[in-house]
């Protein structure tokens, strides 16, 4: 079993060290509740700060129930409360600042039996940089992308990307990828990991025969390095 919950920011604290740590177990337990799971997914997908009222309305929950579960998710380390925000959005009352929630920046991962592929990937990345083997990494990534794209069959591209953890978001004829599945590796080895990522996506598009869609490197703070430009809509 392997479950990973990723942050969207590039800043994070690693909780996973190859052992079953309490934080990860608490997080997994918190998500076992279906209401909490929906709330977590709603906040994560919003890509923004979410108020209690906003979350309750979106999911058709009572506000107090939503508030209760949102706070449980904060305790489990899956969400963070945005501090110091004052807003009139929370309706009438005391004039206290509204409590806003966003996805936590820290990264949690739980592997049973214990595995530490992250550590291995860092060592491998460092070794690849030492010998200047970036081009070989890109070639391998392209090949892996073709395999993923081929296995995806006729399913929509966005579904395939969603499944891989990219959290795609359409707009202006392009797909922005809100989450980087290689986040901590990309933080430590940007050219290597981002180059790998772009080639992987190019391989996926190639295998799908998406002739009028292309992946290119277009990094900006706070999102994945790759952008998929679409000339059509799918």
């Amino acid at each position: 079993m392997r479950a990973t919950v990723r942050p969207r920011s590039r800043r994070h604290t690693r909780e996973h060290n190859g052992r079953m740590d309490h934080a990860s177990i608490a997080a997994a337990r918190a998500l076992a509740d279906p209401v909490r799971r929906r709330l977590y997914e709603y906040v994560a997908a919003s890509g923004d700060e979410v108020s209690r009222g906003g979350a309750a309305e979106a999911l058709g929950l009572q506000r107090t129930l939503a508030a209760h579960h949102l706070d449980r998710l904060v305790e489990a380390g899956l969400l963070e409360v945005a501090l110091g925000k004052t807003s009139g959005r929370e309706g009438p009352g005391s004039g206290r600042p509204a409590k806003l929630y966003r996805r936590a920046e820290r990264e949690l991962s739980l592997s049973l039996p214990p595995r530490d592929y992250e550590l291995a990937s860092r060592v491998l990345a460092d070794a690849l940089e030492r010998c200047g083997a970036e081009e070989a990494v890109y070639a391998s990534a392209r090949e892996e992308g073709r395999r993923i794209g081929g296995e995806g069959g006729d399913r929509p591209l966005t579904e395939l990307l969603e499944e891989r953890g990219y959290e795609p978001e359409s707009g202006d004829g392009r797909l922005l990828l809100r989450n980087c599945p290689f986040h901590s590796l990309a933080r430590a080895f940007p050219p290597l990991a981002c180059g790998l990522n772009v080639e992987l996506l190019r391989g996926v598009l190639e295998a799908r025969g998406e002739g009028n869609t292309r992946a290119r490197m277009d990094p900006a703070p706070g999102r994945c390095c790759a952008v998929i430009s679409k000339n059509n809509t799918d």
Partner: protein
Amino acid sequence: MTDSSPTHHLAQLNIARMRAPLDSPAMSGFVDRLDGINALAEGSPGFVWRLVDGDGDDATGLRPLGDDTIVNMSVWETVDSLWNFTYRSGHMEPLRLRRQWFEHMGEAHTVLWWIPAGTVPTLDEAWERLNLLRTDGPSAEAFTFRSPSSPPSPQN
């Protein structure tokens, strides 16, 4: 100086050994991008200064380490500002393609260090920092993005 003014800025040196002379066709992909990338750096948040040779727009005319090696040196307000320009801007694409133009170096080719705000580093000093990193590994005097060091405290 107000309390919020930083007492130190981040200096950066990068050296790169070219696969071919700068004016050869093999290097045109790099040369064609150079002005755009320099303009991008100057427009980036936190940019303070970059090295240029006497009459040029960039530092490619300076060859303190030999004819085949170009250098670039710049000053930024913070590690994050340089990180964002280096890895989260249009600079990333040429960075990804760098092996087309530059040889792989078996040892460190980039070094970071703190300088008093308002001063400008010299190439001699920069070369010393790079050698320090190469011999002793990352330290407060010569570090890398992967092992960053905090700026010296204002009292120092």
